[in-house]
């Protein structure tokens, strides 16, 4: 039982990282109907900024976190401005290919800037496990869970309570109608990219804390899995991304523990397919029938 709880906790730990990254995917998808393949690389950028801040400049963790979030937010907005905005009205696949191109660009840019070999991330937070009646919780896990919950609550408040959030919801509902209501659509989309990228940066930093090394391709696999999480929960739906992230993290952790660590990815993807076959729009997705 204790072991089970232990695995659940590690699942929650991974799951909250997936959830944070999945939020970026789902927000962008909800508003522009684009699978932002470059999001995984935003995560990588966040991790690299943290690496520079901590290993080279030696700043304290919280300042690094904020700087990295800000830089990633700017990067996200720039990516939208340069690559995606000219394609707002083009075929959806063209925008998707641009996103893939952006992802390749960022990976290779960081490959040239920092080299291909993985860099070791210094342990900034002591990983002394806290013992609670036989269950070990590392300090990093506590920070990961707390930080992701704070981020999610903040996002929820932002989307549901503020004027910007209202604009975001309106644009994702109907772009043309919200333009008529006087909403600056491009600005709203830019803000969505900024918020999504900032959350991605947090996810990236938490990811390097859990697996302490950085390399230019590190964003690929967590990005892919976070995307799976977003689809699992119902892409475009913010609570869906959180739910999907946690479900994916827990499933992965339990599979590694009880079935086989080698087949974990296989089981993660087969669960995705089974869920989609049973409920084609994801766990929280609305089942809208297409009308003629």
């Amino acid at each position, binding site marked *: 039982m204790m072991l089970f709880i232990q695995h659940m906790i590690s699942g929650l730990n991974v799951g909250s990282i997936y959830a944070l990254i999945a939020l970026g995917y789902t927000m962008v998808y909800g508003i522009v109907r684009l699978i932002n393949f470059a999001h995984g690389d935003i995560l990588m950028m966040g991790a690299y900024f943290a690496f520079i801040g901590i290993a080279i400049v030696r700043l304290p963790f919280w300042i690094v976190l904020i700087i990295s979030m800000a830089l990633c937010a700017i990067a996200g907005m720039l990516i939208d401005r340069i*690559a995606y905005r000219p394609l707002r009205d083009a075929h959806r696949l063209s925008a*998707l290919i*641009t996103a893939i191109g952006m992802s390749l660009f960022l990976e290779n840019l960081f490959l*040239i800037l920092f080299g291909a070999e993985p860099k070791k991330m210094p342990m900034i937070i002591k990983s002394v496990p806290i013992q609670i009646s036989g269950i070990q919780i590392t300090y990093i896990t506590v920070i990961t869970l707390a930080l992701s919950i704070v981020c999610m609550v903040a996002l929820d408040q932002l989307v549901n309570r503020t004027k910007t959030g209202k604009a975001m919801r309106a644009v994702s509902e109907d772009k043309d109608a919200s333009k008529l209501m006087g909403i600056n659509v491009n600005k709203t989309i830019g803000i969505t990219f900024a918020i999504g990228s900032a959350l991605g940066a947090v996810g990236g930093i938490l990811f390097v804390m859990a697996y302490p090394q950085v390399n230019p391709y590190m964003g690929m696999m967590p990005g*892919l899995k976070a995307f*799976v999480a977003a689809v699992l929960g119902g892409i475009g739906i913010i609570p869906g991304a959180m739910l999907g992230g946690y479900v994916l993290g827990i499933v992965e952790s339990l599979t590694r523990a009880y079935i086989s660590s080698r*087949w974990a*990815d296989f089981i993660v993807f087969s669960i995705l397919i089974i869920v*989609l076959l049973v409920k*084609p729009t994801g766990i929280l997705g609305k089942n809208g029938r297409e009308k003629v």
Partner: protein
Amino acid sequence: MDKNSISRLGHLENTIGIFIIFGIMIALMNAGMINRYHQGIIIVIFINIILATSLNFITGCLGELALGHAGFMAIGAYTASFVTLNMNLGLPGTVQLIISLLLGGLLAGIFGIIIGIPVLRLEGDYLAITTLGFGEMIRVAIFNLDFLGGARGIFGIPRLTNFNVIFWITVIIIFVLFRIIRSRHGRAILAIRENVIAAESVGIPTVFYKIFTFAISAFIAGVGGGLLAHYLTIIDPKTFNFAYSIDILIFVVLGGMGSFTGAVIGAIILTIMPEFLRVGGIQEYRFLIKAILLIILMIFRPKGILGRAEFSLVQTLEFIKCKIFKNAKKPT
């Protein structure tokens, strides 16, 4: 001239065109203008052409985004290698290769049907992520199955892929795809791309055609994978990762979705370009440049090089004839 004889003449012109290309390539190889290194690149180009046209069949003609094409390739590659290594009938190399390729393609096609079935319920991005998931599952499964060599992969596959074989296989595949898409079935597939509901309401069995498209495309991808395996002589699961699926998609989109000749052009350009950049002394930057070119192309010409148009030798010849003989009849 009536319509029939024009099309017969067109077939003749196309056939002659193919033989001329083949003849030129063989002549250049014999003259030593194309060395072994170039030959390797040419074989990779042909493999990429096969994969690009096969993906174009799903993404361009049926209009569904598929992100797991490398998975079908992997099935074809592993099956074909397995057959070649374990079936010692003492057949000549080419016959052996063709048997292996057919079996590899067949298994990939069966998987294509299995993956095509979810299409009954899914659409758009959900379908895309399902194909991505299947591709990754296939890779992870191969990675963990010990009789397939696991992470080490299979090695010691005889190098049976050569220029002659791959050239004619590519020609046959493109010919067959053209015949399908220009037939009644092809028009049905195109109708599904344009509007599923309208297609269904005029009595096209959309489910059948979606699965049919997936099966054919997977079969061809499997053949391409088998050819790659018999060229590289070593295959491992890492070859068939998500990035390869994306590469194939980029060929298709660059050339123009829905255009087979476009897919061919896309595959040729994107396979050669990194080699040229390698020669140019900017080796480090070649993938960066590739990415930037891709973004710029998408921003300024989002429908790809050819769009949905096909390059036609017959029409080009007619056009040239018109230019040369000003008084000649305009092509209709």
